[in-house]
């Protein structure tokens, strides 16, 4: 049994980003065989960028969350140390004033003071009064979301961003016509350098394209329409077309027509906000497969449609959904795949499944995770336990490489970073640093001999990992990039991660009940990286939408699979180089490359073949099986249901038990083979 190493209490990211970010020294790698000597600051720094951690899917009482804007921001960027934060919330609207803080201990700008006797559940009518509400439902005290985004929440977030010196701005969890939900942001206008910004574009998108948006006031007199330049659907969709919201009698808020409207929304963003917006479908398996006559989930063809419409905007989905502390990590048997798998949705977790099908086309399609914070279930917002959600930064973390040229981190830099695909997501601080790089190497070059020496670029890649930076080299590619090579060349895949020291944020320190099944005694708050899988598949090019059998289909159909995908290598303590401070270095040589392809990695604290957690190949099993594990430690919390011999593994304890990380892909384009068309560099 490996002894656990210590993890830092909170994530912090070294910052060449002009913000107040503490640099965490990477301890103890000097003096070891193959180490990287010297000061990383002596290196050529041509803006290697920094991985910064954030969240873009969460809720307050302005939709169906249960806490104020200020409390959620404070928890996210102060308590849990996020580097950036996008407040979301559903489209539609509501009656509660989410800017009223719960009590006087919560920091709030003077323009949004604590009001004794009021809090985030206080209605708009009882706080600012119905007369301040615009749109069709003023008399109901119902504020449409476009107004709260534009006039209420954004101004507050801009003040919080200034005080906290972090990019804190506003997005949306869109209620999607034809589907369930989607994370979207338009950053145009938000957080300009000298203040005085606006979220007008974000608000207008919500007004025009959210399924729950029912206002007809055209932005309370701002004259908004929703026309998409050149679109044949304008006559139906823009609300100035006469029968407002009636869509000329057609139902564009459901099924296939709803999907078409959603694609129009992407085109609307592309027309005016092509580089300043993103569209990331959320918890994509949760509502089941697409329903052509209702509003349920997404199939693979919908992701293709989105990406085809605007690849700079629709470039991925939420591979790691939030609500990880809910029963069985939030998905029920009605979801595609019947549940989450190691916390990931089935589209992401299935090797050779939907995500690999998209990557196998050479698309720029990347994965992220989020908190989806609403509340802590049967616990209060300041309790450590949860039967529903963890806060942003508490469990799910998306690391995104941002390049700012030494200037402050901006919303635009975050969107740019997300779009590049140079990002990875982590549960429970399993790792907090990663460099994942593929380089061309001379066929005669060799790796370390008997532990001494190093692989090509190893020192530089390790230094980038140590500093939480990207690695840019003309002979190499990192996540979200492609390496163009000649047929027959040799490639080296380098993966360097840090399994950090110290406790993670789990409130539980008793032994991991799943690992006890196989004789491993590992505290729940100190997960140890067990292994890393290198996964790869071939690229066979974009599928023509007219080729319906290959373009559209449910899981396990030809449209939704990439049969060439396989686990190429598994790294663990027997074949990775283990260095002090929790560093692991892994290398894999691809000889005589023939075909265009991609590689990606995943890692976990759960070995292969752990009952109810992983199969014999190390793939995660559906998370509902973890209910079969009995938590028998005396410290197992009482909110786990009692069963014979202890308590049933579920809720937050289940999440902390089984933690994973996922990278995004690196592409290899072989000259004369298939073009990796979705990646331009």
């Amino acid at each position, binding site marked *: 049994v490996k002894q656990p190493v210590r993890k830092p209490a909170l994530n912090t990211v070294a910052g060449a980003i002009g913000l107040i970010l503490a640099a965490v020294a990477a301890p103890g790698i000097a003096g070891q065989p193959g180490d990287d000597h010297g000061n990383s600051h002596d290196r050529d720094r041509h803006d290697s960028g920094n991985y910064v951690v954030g969240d873009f899917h969460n*809720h307050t*009482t302005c*939709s*169906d969350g*249960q*806490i104020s804007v200020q409390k959620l921001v404070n928890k996210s960027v102060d308590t849990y140390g996020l580097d950036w934060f996008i407040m979301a919330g*559903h*489209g*539609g*609207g*509501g*009656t*509660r004033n989410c800017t009223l803080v719960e009590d006087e201990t919560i920091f709030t700008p003077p323009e949004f003071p604590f009001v004794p006797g009021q809090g985030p*559940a206080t209605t708009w009518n009882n706080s600012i009064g119905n007369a301040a509400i615009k749109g069709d439902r003023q008399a109901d005290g119902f504020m449409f979301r476009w107004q709260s985004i534009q006039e209420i929440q954004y101004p507050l977030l801009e003040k919080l961003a200034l005080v906290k010196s972090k990019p804190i701005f506003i997005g949306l*969890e869109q*209620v999607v016509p034809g589907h*369930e*939900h989607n994370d979207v942001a338009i950053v145009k206008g938000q957080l300009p350098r000298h203040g005085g910004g606006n979220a007008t574009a974000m608000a207008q998108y919500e007004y025009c394209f959210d*399924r*729950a948006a*029912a206002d007809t006031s055209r932005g309370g007199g701002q004259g908004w329409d929703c026309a998409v330049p050149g679109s044949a659907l304008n006559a139906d969709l823009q609300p100035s077309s006469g029968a407002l*919201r*009636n*869509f000329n009698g057609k*139902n564009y*808020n*459901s*099924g296939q027509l709803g999907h078409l409207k959603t694609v129009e929304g992407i085109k609307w963003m592309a027309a005016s906000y092509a580089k300043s917006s993103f569209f990331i479908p959320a918890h994509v398996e*949760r*509502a*089941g*497969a*697409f*329903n*052509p*006559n*209702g*509003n*349920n989930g997404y199939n693979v063809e919908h992701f293709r449609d989105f990406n085809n419409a605007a690849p700079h905007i629709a470039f991925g989905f939420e591979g790691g959904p939030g*609500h990880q502390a*809910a*029963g*069985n990590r*939030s*998905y*029920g*048997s*009605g*979801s595609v795949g019947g549940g989450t798998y190691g916390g990931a949705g089935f589209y992401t977790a299935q090797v050779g499944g939907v995500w690999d099908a998209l990557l196998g086309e050479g698309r720029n399609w990347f994965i992220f995770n989020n908190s989806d914070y*609403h*509340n*802590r*279930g*049967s*616990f*209060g*917002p300041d309790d450590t336990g949860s*039967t*529903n959600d963890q806060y942003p930064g508490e469990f799910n973390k998306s690391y995104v490489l941002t390049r700012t040229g030494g200037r402050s981190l901006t919303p635009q830099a975050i969107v740019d970073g997300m779009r590049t695909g140079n990002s990875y997501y982590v549960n429970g601080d399993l790792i907090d640093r990663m460099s994942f790089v593929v380089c061309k190497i001379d066929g005669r070059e060799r790796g370390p001999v008997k532990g001494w020496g190093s692989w090509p670029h190893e020192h530089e890649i390790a230094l980038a990992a140590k500093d939480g930076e990207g690695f840019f080299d003309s002979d190499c590619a990192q996540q979200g990039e492609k390496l163009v090579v000649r047929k027959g060349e040799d490639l080296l895949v380098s993966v360097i991660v840090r399994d950090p020291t110290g406790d993670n944020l789990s409130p539980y320190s008793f032994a991991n009940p799943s690992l006890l099944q196989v004789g491993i005694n590992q505290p729940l708050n100190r997960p140890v990286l067990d292994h890393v899988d290198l996964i790869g598949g071939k690229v066979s090019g974009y599928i023509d939408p007219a080729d319906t059998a290959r373009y559209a289909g*449910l899981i396990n159909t030809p449209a939704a699979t990439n049969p060439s995908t396989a686990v190429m290598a598994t790294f663990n303590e027997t074949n990775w180089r283990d260095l002090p401070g929790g560093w692991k270095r892994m290398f894999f040589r691809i000889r005589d490359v023939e075909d265009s392809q991609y590689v990606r990695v995943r890692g976990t604290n759960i070995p292969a073949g752990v009952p109810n957690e992983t199969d014999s190949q190390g793939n995660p099993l559906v998370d509902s099986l973890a209910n079969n594990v009995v938590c028998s430690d005396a410290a197992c919390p009482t909110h786990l249901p009692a069963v014979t011999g202890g308590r049933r593994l579920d809720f937050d304890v289940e999440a902390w038990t089984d933690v994973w990380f996922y990278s995004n892909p690196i592409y290899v384009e072989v000259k004369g083979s298939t073009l990796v068309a979705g990646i331009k560099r």
Partner: protein
Amino acid sequence: VKYPTLRSSSLPLALAMAVCAGFAPTWGHEYYANHFQIIHPWSQPAPARASGVAIFMEFTQVESADRLLGASTSVAGRVEFVQPAGHEQGIVLEPGREVSLGPTSAHLVMHDLNTQLHYGRQYPLTLLFEKAGTVEVEFIVGEH
């Protein structure tokens, strides 16, 4: 939020009805059954040992008929229907009709709460349907 039973990809199209544009339930707290959706189950805050605490919710995207037969929760001794006089027991779901369980219509009530229901928290609720069977949801304390 837990999302229950697997939705079929081969539902009869003729039964599927549009959601009318004017319908504005609270989005985000939704549950998906085979042939309908459950929107935002909620109750008011209540002290421990209280009885008669109502649970409200809405049903939408009803694609085939069903009937809510009963409910239970670990936080209450029992859950009963409150229904207008003359109605048969249970909540009837019909294709294409949205059903709202509200204060002035049929709804559920909890008796003998064994814990305080705090505003902003959520608790498990098991719904039993004639055709969909058991559907696990959670109700939130507080309307929004």
